[in-house]
């Protein structure tokens, strides 16, 4: 892969919750178009790390630069940044009082000040891309989990994001719905989107990832390309973890 401009640059990043040291000395660079999959046991700080990437959490020390914007608590540019960086949550977090279409158009209309007609056109395009154009006028509660998560992905895409963050997007789904969401994510990866994905779906990781990251206890233990990561990881802890989740 040719190394293009870095989209996310993390240097010496530390994060505390009170006295709890949640992220320890994190260094990570994500280039444009790169797909990074982060895995690790629960409580290892994976979610906290990607939540820092769009200002849902703030780091305490170190440096975080995303698409040229320096991220820190109280930064004026943080709202511009969030429009660039989409986030897909484990619990979907669709707006239950709005229809699917309204969920998709409210961001572009209110934040980007785009006209309703244009926002709806974009929204329908993206619904097509996540394969549920027929659900536009339903409410989120009327959809299956897999459909809801695909709407959530479309909602982020409608903001014309340049980076997509996924925080365990399939963990709250019934097994039979996991693939429909992963398929959409694979298609998205094929468009050249920069993606950072926290997931335990190793099949997906193998198919899509350019870089694998293994975290444990707030630290990045291993960063390597998938071929090496899955066959010959350098750390013992990472090998154990992979054995555990790949056995089943």
């Amino acid at each position: 892969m040719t190394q293009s401009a870095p989209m996310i640059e993390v240097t010496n990043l530390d994060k505390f919750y009170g006295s709890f040291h949640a992220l320890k000395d994190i260094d990570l660079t994500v280039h444009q178009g790169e797909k990074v999959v982060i895995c690790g046991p629960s409580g290892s700080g994976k979610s906290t790390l990607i939540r820092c990437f769009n200002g849902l959490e703030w780091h305490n020390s170190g440096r975080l630069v995303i698409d040229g914007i320096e991220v820190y608590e109280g930064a004026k540019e943080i709202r511009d940044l969030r429009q660039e960086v989409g986030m897909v949550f484990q619990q979907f977090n669709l707006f239950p009082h709005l229809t699917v279409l309204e969920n998709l158009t409210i961001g572009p209309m209110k934040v980007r000040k785009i006209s309703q007609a244009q926002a709806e056109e974009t929204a329908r395009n993206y619904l097509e891309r996540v394969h549920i154009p027929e659900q536009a006028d339903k409410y989120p509660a009327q959809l299956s989990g897999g459909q809801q998560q695909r709407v959530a992905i479309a909602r982020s895409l409608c903001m014309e994001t340049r980076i997509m963050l996924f925080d365990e997007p399939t963990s709250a789904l019934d097994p039979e719905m996991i693939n429909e969401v992963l398929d959409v994510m694979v298609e998205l990866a094929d468009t050249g989107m920069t993606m950072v994905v926290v997931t335990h779906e190793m099949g997906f990781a193998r198919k899509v990832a350019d870089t694998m990251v293994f975290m444990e206890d707030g630290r990045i233990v291993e960063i390597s390309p998938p071929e090496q990561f899955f066959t010959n990881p350098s750390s013992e802890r990472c090998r154990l973890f992979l054995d555990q989740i790949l056995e089943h």
Partner: protein
Amino acid sequence: MQNFVKKMKWPDYLILALLVGFFGYIWYSIEGTLNYKWRWELIPGYIVGWHSGREEWFANLLLQGLAATVRISIYASILALILGTILGVARCSANLTVRMLARTYLECLRNIPPVVVVFIFFFFLSQQLIDALDLERWARGIARQEDIGVWEFFFGEMRRFPSLVSGVIVLALFESAFVGEIVRAGIQSIPRGQREAARSIGMSRVQELRYIVLPQAMKRVVPPLANQFITLIKDSSIISLISVQELTYKTVELVASSRMIFEAWITTAAFYFLVCFTLSRVFARLEKRGKAGER
């Protein structure tokens, strides 16, 4: 009803007999000791009277009072909802000063008796406001106009307009504290993920509140809000103390002039009961229908 009678056992009959005996005794005391002369037949005349000169029906004391109570309750509810929403939002504000101010306001109102609060608001706030806006003169100007039917429909007698305004303000300020608490509870019941999702698509705090949090919160707090509005109607009797001519005030007037203590107060109680009970049934039905619609 038949079912109910069938379910009655002997303890039920005993309790009912005791109650009948108790009320019978009170009745007897009033009849015998006080030598009270009941004049129920006069009450309808104080609700609707016949103006023999103009040959037309007119709303007499009690109905005027009821109308005023209804008007004041509606306006005060609307104002209390607006103020309460602001207060509820302030209670959840990120700014410490704003949060503390809202908290102080709430705690003051919670820990001072309503009557005292009403007097304080009346003398310190609404009176000043009415003077400052020169409402007195404005209302008298309206009262002198020819065609004031619409004005009177909405605000009653225009000469009494300033007193209506202070009544509404005082009542709304008082109830807004409790509405604020309800709204705060509603806002805090919205899962964190909703705010995070709103923020992650670039919404500002105001947008997040306006488009995502408040619409959901307000929907959830409809039942407790409805209860609070019924409480407001009952609390409205307190503002008779600052000479707002609502139902309680008019009843005091009626009792003073006619000496029909028991009849007047029983009638007034029935009016309040009717309004509040009807509303609570209506709200209960709306709530049931709302819930059915969600599924």
